């Protein structure tokens, strides 16, 4: 499906789009799993709407790591054909670190620029994401925005940028000068592979009726030595648990020790509490 040309592009740009990796029936089955999870959370009273942002807060920002209790989601996450693409690019076996599912209904905020490995804390090297386009995505319903070339940079400063809208944030990173943002358009089943050091984010879902569902898994090279505690539940390609040392000082802790205590971060950190 990909060859030398695509590998060169990935190494140079820091990301790669591969079309039609997941099929319609697989996406439909994944959506059904997450709909069930969402319904259970709603029934348990764990999702509390904010009347100022009713549709956005009807869904958690993201549903994190539900693959751990769900074989169907695990199978989707570890689809052999998808993993082989990343292994080809890295020339190494990989371990799955974490999964996230986004509903992103109309009106949902975008994600500001960030580098994934600031939180994940993989050493040596960095993390790698496989982002699956569950719905078609474009600028109207919230495109994935990537800054090619920034994957060659070290992890940089995190800033607190307060403001009236959730377009602002507590952990934003400023786009380096001289780089251009690419707005990625995708069709259902396409994947985007990108590195944990590349600056990326997403735009707001400005559509009236379109969700922008996506599923992203973060991976590490099998040779990873250390990883942040909150991301340390590693599994191999067969879904078996693999252990590595804990990185007690990922970049996020180094930057904001007085503010964040990731050791206490809850497992299901996506549940909205009385906003």
């Amino acid at each position, binding site marked *: 499906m990909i060859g030398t040309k695509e590998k060169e592009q990935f190494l140079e740009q820091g990301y790669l789009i591969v079309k039609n990796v997941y099929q319609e029936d697989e996406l439909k089955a994944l959506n059904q799993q997450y709909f069930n999870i969402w319904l259970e959370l709603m029934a348990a009273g764990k999702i509390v709407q904010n009347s100022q942002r009713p549709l956005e807060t009807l869904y958690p920002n993201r549903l994190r790591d539900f693959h751990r209790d769900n074989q169907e989601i695990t199978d989707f996450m570890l689809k052999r054909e998808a993993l082989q693409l990343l292994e080809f690019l890295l020339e190494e076996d990989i371990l799955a670190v974490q999964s996230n599912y986004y509903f992103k209904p109309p009106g949902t905020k975008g994600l500001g620029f960030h580098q994934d490995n600031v939180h994940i804390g993989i050493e040596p090297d960095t993390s790698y994401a496989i982002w699956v386009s569950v719905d078609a995505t474009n600028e109207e319903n919230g495109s994935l925005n990537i800054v090619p070339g920034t994957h060659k940079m070290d992890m940089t400063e995190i800033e607190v940028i307060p*403001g*009236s809208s959730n377009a602002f944030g*507590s952990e934003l990173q400023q786009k380096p000068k001289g780089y251009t943002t690419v707005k990625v358009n995708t069709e259902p089943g396409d994947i985007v592979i990108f590195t944990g050091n590349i600056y990326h984010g997403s*735009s707001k879902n400005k559509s009236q009726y379109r969700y922008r569902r996506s599923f992203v898994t973060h991976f590490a090279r099998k040779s990873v030595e250390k990883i942040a505690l909150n991301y340390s539940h590693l599994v191999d390609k067969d879904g078996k648990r693999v252990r590595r040392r804990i990185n007690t000082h990922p970049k996020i802790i180094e930057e904001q020790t007085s*503010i964040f205590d990731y050791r206490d971060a809850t497992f299901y950190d996506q549940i909205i509490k009385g906003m």
Partner: protein
Amino acid sequence: MQGLLERIDSTFLQVEDMERACQWYHDTLGFPILWRTDIIIALKVGDKTPLTLVKKGTVPANHPPFHFFTSNIEKVRDAMIENNIQVEEIRDYGTVQLLDFIDSEGNHLHVCQYEMG
């Protein structure tokens, strides 16, 4: 530059204890929460300018007391340069852009632009 700075987007107040401040402003004064993190809480104050609480020590001590809003931050920067206003490069955070400038009194102020609906 008339009309380029369209409104005050938010005023800011730095607070010591976010939970205590949230209870006081949200529960006691009754301002609805627009959105929040552990260190930022934006409150709706009637239909006018929101009030944003931010945890002391997480932003520079001289953080501006308010943000201007524009829907064309590059045009604002060009116009400020034409008017000999001391202005920095635009800071791009993806979902929001900020422009730092200095007023006639030496105050450090911001113009912001972000994705509207």
